[in-house]
């Protein structure tokens, strides 16, 4: 029986338990290193699994039967193949770096042990989600991840805004969970199995492109859309930035939000079989990518810009898996994990340097004060915009665009959209860079900024390295055994398309350079000229307000009605009525207790007469109605 996979799960779980139960009494350093160490240990195990996978086949191991009722069996089984190996490597690797960073970043925080406990819980849940071998445990992991996200977004629970954001995230996630559960129902109803292996074997029994399989494939995306913050269930992600920056880096950039992508990739056999659903996923991805990028151009909070950037990049991943380019999508997932985590952690350093101010307009010209952060952030920005050849982002993003553009039909237009989005990405990222970081070298800085300690700089240096060389990791060939069919979807000349992408990015870069580095007054002028568009974009297309009007207010009205009318009058009224009735009857019955011998005797005598009558009637001695 293979033990590596459960060990990967066990390490963060043990870390969670230790920190949760006794964390408060342990010294701070120990708590931090237990938290980070458990993830590091999991990473080591993941590397061992990688070694296993490179040699052999995939592994579908059942450890015990969790639940069995009649012929419905839910085992606890773990499915380890190259796809899940990639996922766990990224989760534990990047996760470990983020944990180490947190040791320094959260050092002043009173809830130190709680933080690391929650973080470990999250990693455990995410690993469970990824390693699970059947739909039930997937959903369990899915829900647990949502829980961890809620706990971590609302980590600073004294802040109302944080609590509200956590609640919003959880509610939207739950909507997604409903979709997931219904998908499981449908699958079980039609195919009578819930574990992956049997599922994959039986998928072809259903008619290709038929309503059943399309329905089955449309439901998990509901969950994925909620979890990965795509349109229309995306409004929680910007608000989720209320959580501490490491949380944003780990959960809302590198891992949890990519769970949806993993899901579609895992179910690729189903999505191959239901092209309509796959197309829907692609469209959602493409549109979200564009939509989020436009919003990102008008935001002024550093973490929010990064949040919209995440939304946009995940849109790319959805687009990829939707059109069948699974390896491209997973490749982008990996590179995105590197540079997005890097960007967030570097942003965290900047935020700390400015004493928790997140408005980029108050920053600028950090080259001298925060050198390491400055250069690593620059590398991250270059990666995300796809700077040719030397950055990982170039390779992964390009694969996706290439796959889209070489396909026929509607996917081509999505490819065009992705191309435009690439330009927008360059624009808003460099806008961010120029405004927040600037290019000038200040010889004398009034602000007395200092660079963060090693715990916070070493991880981002490592991530920066990943953002550069990650493009050379042969993900595509590594994953091709999983996805069976040819993964190289593109047929157009590779370099021609690459040039197109780079051109789009270059346009964005130059626009940003012009507006924000060279001629800021132009930016102001343009903003006034394009005021209506700018306002629309700045307010995120008013989606939040729309939801509030259409969904939140009616729901609150219904709740208020139920409370005032149903709860108070009907339910409480019924209970009170019963009590009142009892009191009434008691008052009546009390009068029997007169205390007078004679009334008691009368009652007794009456009773005696009654009994005699009954007995006589029963024995048939009475003239009428003989017998009982």
């Amino acid at each position: 029986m293979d033990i590596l996979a459960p060990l990967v799960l066990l390490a963060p779980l043990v870390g969670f338990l230790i920190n949760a139960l006794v964390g408060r009494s342990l010294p701070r350093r120990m708590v931090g290193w237990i938290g980070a160490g458990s993830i590091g240990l999991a990473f080591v195990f993941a590397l061992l699994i990688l070694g296993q996978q490179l040699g052999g086949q995939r592994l579908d191991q059942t450890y015990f039967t969790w639940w069995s009722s009649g012929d419905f069996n839910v085992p606890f089984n773990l499915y380890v193949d190259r796809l899940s190996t990639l996922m766990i490597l990224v989760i534990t690797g990047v996760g470990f770096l983020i944990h180490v960073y947190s040791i320094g970043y959260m050092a002043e925080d009173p809830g130190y042990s709680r933080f690391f406990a929650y973080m470990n819980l999250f990693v455990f849940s995410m690993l469970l989600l990824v390693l699970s071998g059947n739909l039930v445990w997937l959903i369990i992991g899915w829900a647990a991840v949502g829980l961890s996200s809620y706990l971590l977004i609302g980590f600073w629970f004294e802040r109302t805004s944080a609590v509200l954001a956590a609640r919003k995230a959880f509610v939207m996630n739950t909507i997604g969970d409903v979709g997931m559960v219904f998908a499981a129902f449908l699958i079980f109803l039609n195919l009578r199995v819930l574990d992956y292996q049997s599922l994959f074997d039986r998928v072809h029994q259903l008619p290709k492109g038929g309503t059943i399989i399309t329905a089955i494939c449309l439901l998990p995306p509901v969950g994925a859309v909620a979890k990965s913050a795509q349109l229309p269930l995306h409004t929680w992600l910007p608000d989720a930035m209320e959580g501490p920056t490491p949380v944003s880096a780990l959960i809302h950039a590198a891992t949890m939000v990519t769970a949806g992508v993993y899901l579609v990739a895992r179910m690729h056999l189903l999505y191959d079989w239901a092209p309509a659903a796959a197309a829907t996923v692609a469209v959602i991805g493409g549109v979200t990518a564009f939509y989020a990028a436009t919003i990102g151009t008008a935001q002024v909070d550093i973490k929010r810009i990064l949040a919209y950037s995440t939304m946009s990049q995940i849109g790319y991943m959805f687009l990829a898996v939707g059109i069948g380019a699974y390896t491209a999508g997973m490749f982008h997932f990996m590179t995105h994990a590197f540079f997005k985590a890097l960007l967030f952690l570097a942003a965290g350093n900047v935020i700390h340097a400015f004493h928790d101010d997140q408005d980029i307009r108050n920053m600028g010209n950090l080259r001298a004060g925060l050198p390491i952060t400055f250069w690593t952030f620059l590398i991250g920005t270059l990666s995300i915009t796809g700077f040719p050849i030397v950055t990982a982002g170039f390779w992964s993003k390009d694969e996706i665009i290439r796959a889209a553009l070489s396909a026929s039909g509607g996917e081509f237009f999505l490819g065009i959209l992705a191309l435009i989005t690439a330009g927008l990405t360059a624009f808003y990222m460099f806008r961010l860079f120029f405004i927040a970081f600037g290019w000038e070298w200040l010889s004398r800085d009034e602000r007395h900024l200092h660079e963060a300690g090693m715990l916070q700089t070493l991880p981002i240096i490592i991530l920066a390295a990943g953002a550069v060389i990650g493009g050379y990791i042969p993900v595509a060939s590594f994953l091709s055994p999983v996805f069976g069919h040819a993964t190289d979807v593109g047929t157009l000349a590779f370099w021609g398309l690459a040039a197109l992408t780079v051109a789009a990015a270059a346009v964005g870069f130059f626009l940003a350079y012009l507006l924000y580095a060279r001629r800021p007054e132009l930016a102001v002028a343009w903003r006034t000229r394009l005021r209506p568009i700018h306002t629309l974009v700045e307010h995120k297309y008013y989606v939040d307000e729309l939801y509030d009007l259409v969904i939140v207010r009616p729901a609150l009205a219904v709740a208020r009605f139920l409370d005032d009318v149903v709860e108070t009058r009907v339910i409480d009224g019924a209970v009170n009525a019963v009590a009142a009735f009892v009191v009434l009857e008691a008052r009546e019955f009390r009068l029997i207790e007169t205390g007078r011998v004679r009334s008691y005797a009368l009652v007794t005598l009456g009773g005696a007469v009654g009994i005699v009558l009954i007995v006589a009637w029963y024995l048939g001695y009475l003239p009428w109605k003989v017998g009982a």
Partner: protein
Amino acid sequence: MPVPAYAFLMLSGALFTMGAIGFMVRRNPLVVFMCVELMLNAVNLAFAAMSRFLNSLDGVVFAFLVITVAAAEVVVGIAIIVQVYRAGRQMDVDELDLMKE
């Protein structure tokens, strides 16, 4: 036995009814008590009659036990009535309603 069984039983019934009516009508507690004794006697008569006519000893034995218990009851009841008298209350069952509610 030339006298039929029902004669004894009807006598017993008549005595019992008279005791019951007396119990309901009289006000002096002692007299009420005496009516209770009358009722018990009637029951004893019924027991003895049934015992005779069914060739059994159960009735006789039970009547004997009833006598014993009645004696005990009378003792306690009289003691209570004496206390009531000594307390100066009215010797009238209608007035003695301290057990109200």
